């Protein structure tokens, strides 16, 4: 294409000319070659993929109830005009327990007020989350999983919005039933879809990992808050009906006094069972030491505590066993937990000697993983039993879910977020807390620690990791003292 006169040009110029030539050739010559599609459709002709392009990528999913031609305008007239203009109420634990009344006694009026507050608050909060999703790039939210989450959020929004005002205690009774169905219904499917959506976006590089991390965390925090608000209302409603007219603890019956040691030992035996299940019964287990303030008792959500300790400890156990096998040691290195308490917080330091965290696994603390890890995680999600057959659209369209598939992520790190904090009472959830955390290793989703971080931060805490390569890892779980932070606007993490 370009003739180089070598006579009149120096060697360097020839070289440059050659480079220029080859560059410009690759620049334009690629358009003269038959486009190569085998990467996208390895076994079939690309023309067989063609008919799927519009149905899978257009903005209005075939089965959607809300996302259609009219959605944009309806959203503008209702959600934007009437609900985005309202701000969610930041609520402290103390306020939530007392409902703007200094006495702890439960009265009829207080229950009704609480019901109306919950209705108004949830619809506002969900509207803001919907708006957050709406402002993300189209290809992120239009993802197969994300748009189901969007659909279900909209469904919740619409159902709460249309729910009539609560005037009597009987109204509240019905409302409690309604809350109960919403909590135990399809809502629970949001979580795996949310995470799978994030993973798919990560694999396709559609959104920066740190930002995606923030999106998921904020949706999870909002979810914890929503659940607490609902559960608190269910709890006091239940207490009122059972004749218990006094709110004795901080918040309904959700919080209880927890013994640090007991919870740690519980987590330990759970981990040991897990390890034995993974390898074989009788395999040597690491020694487990607890020091520091071993007699510590503190007020917390038992379920959250159990989950947090279990997840963090399980990680140390797994790593310790791997190192034990890899190095062919006499016995596994010990795991030591130090309990520290101070005025504002409770700290658990878990020290293992499992060789530290390999560099490429640093993202285990985040939802925004490396693409490779995201791929692994997603493929494990795809293996979850039942997940293939369920769709949020079915429940939104009122078809309901069959029993066998209503809880596809049993035994995974997603389970506890769906478990109820209500120990008993009228509105007790049917689902028992099935072998929490005792999931099989084949469902390793790789997001357990990322979830822990959200939970720890929710309770004014942190989750920090210090890795000493070639030696071990210290994991520090810090939880805020709820009694110290009662005045803090805990539930503002909308």
């Amino acid at each position, binding site marked *: 294409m370009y003739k180089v006169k070598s006579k009149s040009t120096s060697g360097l110029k020839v070289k440059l000319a050659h480079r220029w030539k080859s560059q410009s050739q690759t620049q334009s010559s690629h358009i003269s070659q*038959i486009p190569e599609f085998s990467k996208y459709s390895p076994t079939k002709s690309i023309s067989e993929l063609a008919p799927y392009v519009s149905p899978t990528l*257009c903005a209005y999913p075939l089965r959607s109830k809300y996302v259609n031609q009219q959605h944009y305008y309806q959203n503008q007239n209702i959600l934007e005009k009437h609900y985005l203009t309202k701000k969610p109420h930041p609520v402290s634990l103390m306020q939530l327990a007392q409902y703007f009344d200094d006495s702890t006694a439960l009265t009829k009026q207080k229950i009704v007020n609480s019901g109306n507050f919950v209705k108004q608050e949830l619809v506002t909060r969900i509207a803001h989350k919907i708006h957050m999703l709406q402002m993300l790039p189209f*290809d992120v939210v239009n993802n197969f999983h994300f748009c189901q989450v969007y659909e279900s959020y909209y469904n919740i929004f619409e159902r709460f919005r249309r729910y009539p005002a609560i005037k009597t205690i009987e109204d509240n009774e019905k409302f409690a039933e309604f809350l109960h169905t919403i909590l135990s219904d399809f809502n629970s499917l949001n979580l795996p879809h949310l995470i799978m959506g994030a993973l798919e976006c990560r694999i396709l590089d559609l959104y920066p990992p740190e930002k995606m991390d923030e999106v998921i965390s904020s949706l999870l925090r909002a979810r914890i808050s929503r659940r607490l608000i609902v559960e608190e209302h269910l709890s006091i409603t239940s207490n009122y009906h059972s004749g218990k007219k006094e709110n004795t603890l901080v918040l309904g019956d959700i919080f209880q006094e927890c013994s640090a040691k007991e919870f740690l030992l519980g987590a330990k035996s759970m981990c040991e069972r897990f390890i034995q299940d993974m390898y074989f019964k009788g395999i040597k287990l690491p020694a487990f030491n607890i020091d520091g303030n071993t007699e510590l008792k503190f007020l917390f959500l038992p379920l959250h505590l159990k989950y947090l300790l279990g997840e963090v400890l399980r990680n140390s156990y797994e790593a310790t066993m791997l190192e034990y096998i890899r190095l062919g040691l006499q016995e596994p290195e010990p795991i030591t937990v130090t309990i520290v308490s101070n005025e504002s917080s409770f700290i658990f330091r878990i020290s293992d000697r499992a060789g530290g965290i390999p560099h490429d696994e640093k993202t285990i603390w985040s939802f925004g993983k490396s693409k490779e890890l995201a791929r692994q995680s997603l493929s494990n999600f795809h293996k979850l039993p039942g997940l293939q057959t369920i769709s949020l659209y079915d429940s939104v369209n009122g078809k309901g879910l069959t029993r066998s598939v209503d809880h596809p992520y049993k035994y995974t790190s997603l389970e506890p977020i769906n478990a109820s904090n209500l120990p008993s009472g009228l509105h007790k959830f049917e689902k028992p807390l099935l072998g929490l955390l005792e999931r099989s290793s084949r469902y390793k989703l790789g997001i357990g620690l990322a979830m822990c971080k959200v939970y720890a931060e929710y309770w004014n805490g942190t989750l920090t990791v210090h890795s000493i390569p070639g030696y071990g890892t210290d994991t520090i779980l810090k939880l805020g003292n709820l009694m110290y932070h009662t005045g803090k606007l805990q539930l503002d993490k909308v």
Partner: protein
Amino acid sequence: MFARHSQLAGRGLKQLAITVKLPRLIFHSCATRQSYSTKTSMREKLKEVGFEELYRIRSNTQLLIQDFAKKPIPPLSYEFLTQYKVPLTENQKYTLTIQTVNLLLMYTCRRLVAIQRLPYIAVLNPNIEQTNRLYLRTLESLLSLNYPYGLHDQGVMTKKLTEFLDDHQDTLVTLSRGFQEIMDFFPKEAVFDFLNLHLRDRIAMKLLATHYLALVSQKSNEEPVIGVLHKNLKISELVRRVEEFVGDLCFVKYDHQLPIEILEGEDVTFPCIPTDLEYVLTEILKNSSRAHIENSVPENNTAEKPIEVTIVRNDNDLKIRIRDFGGGIPPDVEDRMFDYSYSTVNSDAKDSGMSAYVIPGEDVCNVSGMGFGLPMCKAYMEMFGGSVDIQSLWGWGTDAYICLKGPSPNLLK
């Protein structure tokens, strides 16, 4: 001939266009019906696809779009347009098909990525979603070519490209309406950036398809054209043709027609793409005519004063100056001349940017108050190294300078 794919045909040509378009319309309605039935069967089809398989399809499609959007697109050049001369050998037709398909794929994917980067709620707007769907359909059509053997089938290619041009004919109206609706929450600059690239890509895509269709159907090399490129266009003839069309428009609106005087260059010929130049001339002469008529007062009587056109060729450069006496452009609008002016139709006309200076009723140029005209002119001219300059003498008149770069003469041999 100039008006082959242009919306700006004179009266006689318009009738012609209707007769030509008729069979296409019938065909199109068939296609719509067909796509409706495929839509319902698609529903069934999607249900049959397994969870994992669906995931692969979804992510591979996304990946394909991303990859093709990233490929560098060589700028459209006269070299490209003139690489094959009539009559084309089978081999040349084949290569041209591959090139056209490749380029259209890249442009389509690039547009899709741009649309998909908009906020979710923006694309849920039915007007914008329609554009999204249109490009998805174009991608579908390009992917269903039955590679590689299908590329030899001229009939299929011709049909597909004709469909493509038809599908993309009146889409700007919808898109601009959509953007107007989302302006409340979407920054103006981002809209302009999007529209700028969108219009440019769209022009290039249409040109590619038109060029292909013209070139492969051309039988003899006696004609003075190579596809869309005219080897030796008599510029004054084009000006006269546009004058007639603009005159019609003005007659409808003002019951008055404006004379145009060619001061210089009555005989000048120049190699260029007539439809592009036609668009630009129409746009500018429309603005000038309107200014002459609307600002006419008994003292100056500009309504009777001719617009002056000067045509000068220097080797490979062509300059056309269009001089009017319509009072110029107010300073506060001058800066925004090449913006897409957003205004509601009922707002004060003097305050709504260039749209106020455009004759209403012309869909593409004035879409619900949005002026696409001048930005489009710029896009057309800049594609082949030309330019459009507007010089306003506020209180007197406006000079528009159209500059064209022609292909080097050896390309036309």
